[in-house]
């Protein structure tokens, strides 16, 4: 017989009665106190689950209940009465190693979802969507940029024609090797010229496939190869459908944060927005690397020197005054040094004497 001190409530009033709960091995339960004498069987009881050391409740039927604190004694008796019906969650909560193990598993899943799950899923969804979705997405993009940033281009027609020809040659040459196997044809890259304004020497790829190159950039490029390197990079963004995929990935992150973490952090606070921001910056850097790899392959396929991108980046960094004060994890792009290193690694030393104009 197990005896537990408890409080009895009749379910009709807020009167508390001290009682003795006696738990018998054969499943009988007796609740006895001043003016209370009840007999029940284990199967008739409604027993609340264990949550930490919070008091347990035993429903005796008809709204009457007992409140007791000795969870260990109750659980020991309960284990004999209802074998195999153990609270798994309560067991995890009770033991440090189990709780920590589940915690690490949860953190690992979260990390995996961010690193592979969401990008993979977004890429899969993007592949099943027609390119008309991309076009719709970027429909108003250029107009908005025109209003906010750009002025009409001042380049003369001859220069434009030569850049356009270069662009067409690069766009035709879709590489098929492993690194860019995910690139999908169908979204046709189109070239637009603009004066960059505050954006200066720059190039953009919009979700709709439009590549905007600024006059300043065309002038900054020392030769055709450098210009080709930038254009190939932007075509890489288009071919990989980075515009659509980044929208899908953002949606994925929002769903993950709201769904899986919504009960624990509010999205409207810094604790909610900061991780989302860091993850999206990481995604952005990944896209840049992907576009760099694409550009390198296209240049190689056309017999150009991929290190032209490194040269132009160096000049750009000088023009913009370095990478700025932000640490790497707060940037949309990998650092110039990192990108140049990656290009160098992907490029074997060029044959002597090549390439020339």
């Amino acid at each position, binding site marked *: 017989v197990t005896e537990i001190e408890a409080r009895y409530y009749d379910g009709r009033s807020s009167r508390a009665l001290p009682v003795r709960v006696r738990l018998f091995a054969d499943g009988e339960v007796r609740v006895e106190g001043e003016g209370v004498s009840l007999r029940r069987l284990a199967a008739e009881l409604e027993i609340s689950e264990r*949550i930490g050391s919070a008091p347990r409740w035993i429903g005796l039927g008809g709204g009457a209940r007992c409140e007791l604190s000795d969870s260990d004694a109750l659980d020991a008796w309960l284990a004999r009465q209802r074998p195999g019906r153990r609270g798994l969650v309560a067991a995890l909560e009770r033991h440090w190693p189990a709780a920590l193990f589940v915690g690490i598993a949860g*953190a690992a899943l979260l990390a995996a979802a961010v690193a592979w799950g969401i990008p993979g899923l977004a890429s899969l969804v993007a592949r099943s969507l027609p390119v008309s979705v991309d076009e719709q997405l970027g429909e108003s993009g250029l107009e908005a940029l025109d209003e906010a940033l750009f002025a009409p281009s001042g380049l003369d027609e001859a220069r434009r024609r030569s850049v356009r020809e270069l662009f067409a040659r690069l766009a035709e040459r879709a590489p098929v090797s492993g690194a860019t196997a995910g690139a999908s044809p169908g979204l046709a890259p189109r070239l637009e010229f603009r004066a960059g304004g505050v954006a200066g020497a720059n190039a953009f790829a919009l979700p709709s496939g439009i590549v905007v190159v600024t006059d300043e950039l065309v002038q900054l490029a020392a030769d055709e190869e450098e210009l080709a390197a930038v254009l190939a990079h932007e075509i890489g963004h288009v071919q990989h459908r980075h515009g659509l995929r980044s929208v899908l990935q953002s949606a994925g992150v929002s769903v993950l944060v709201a769904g899986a973490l919504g*009960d624990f952090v509010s999205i409207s606070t810094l604790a909610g927005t900061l991780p989302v921001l860091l993850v999206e910056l990481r995604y952005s850097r990944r896209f840049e690397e992907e576009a760099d790899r694409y550009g390198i392959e296209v240049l190689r396929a056309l017999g150009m020197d991929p290190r032209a991108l490194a040269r132009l980046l160096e000049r750009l960094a000088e023009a913009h005054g370095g990478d700025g004060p932000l640490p790497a994890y707060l940037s949309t792009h990998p650092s110039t040094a990192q990108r140049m290193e990656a290009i160098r690694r992907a490029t074997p030393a060029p044959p002597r004497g090549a390439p020339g104009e």
Partner: protein
Amino acid sequence: MERRVSFTGSTGEFFRIWLVNLSLTVLSLGFYGPWAKVRTRKWFYGSCVLDGSSFHYDADPVRILVGRLIVLGLLFVFGLVQEVAPLLSGLLSLAWLALLPWLIVRSLAFHHRCSSWRGVRFGFGASWGEAAKVYLLAPLALFFTLGLALPWLVGRQQEFRVRGSRYGTAPFGFAWRAGPYYRVHLAALGIWIVASLAGTMLLASLGAFEALGRWASGPAPSPADLPWALFAAWGGVVAAAGTAGLAVLRAGVTNLLYDQAKLGDIRFRSQVKASRLFHLYLTSALAVVASVGLAVPWAMVRIARYRAGCLQVVSETPLDQFAQAQEEALGGEMAAEAADFFDFDFGL
């Protein structure tokens, strides 16, 4: 006779509960969320002890899940309509607005009915019209008074929530005046402004702004050598000042809520101190940031422990005369079932 509420839960225990809840929610892609929420609440309620008896929370997680799915579905429909027929979405916004008071009442009813002490349930009953007055009409006063009505509105909404509540069959009362709410808000605003100014002046006296001036008038101001440490220090000062204002506001409003409420002959006394709350908030925030969130359960427990310990129940008679409300008395079985069907946790 005064009876203090005490909080008996321990931090280590809650850390494990929190960690398991968080992880299972992530591992289940959010579907465990309602169960996590109910377990958390059960633990906090169970850890609050008044007159030897603990509080009890008894919600069915499935209902919370259903409530969330309904809201998610409504939002989805809303988004779809906005995409397809933007004109109709304006109408739908109005419908959503009209639905809001009803959702608030149903949510409060759900939570109150799930809460009990000594086996006697709390309850909430207020009409949709009353809720609409307090949550839709009264906020218009903010617009017409340029926000000056805010303290009054806070009091008015407290009145709505307290007067609609009952313990068993006994209704709560709330006798309030707007003056104290204005005092609390003015104090919070004053502390915030004075602390911000004092902190800024302290930084200035340390020569911080000369550094900024030197940077601006330098030969080539580039963002790379901006005095970032100065901005960080100033941000810290402003955040601390904001926290101080928030502590004054929370302490004052919480004390007003309990001090003005009554339940039959029973009165409540809440003695939350703003200085103590400020200290708790500030150290908790620092610990949470430094631990990348792992200190959240510790912060939750210490704030709950302090707030519970500040509450006293003042009564000359024993607390055992409250009667359970009979569901039948509210309008028969049908009403009880209808209430059951419509009462969800909408997370409001």
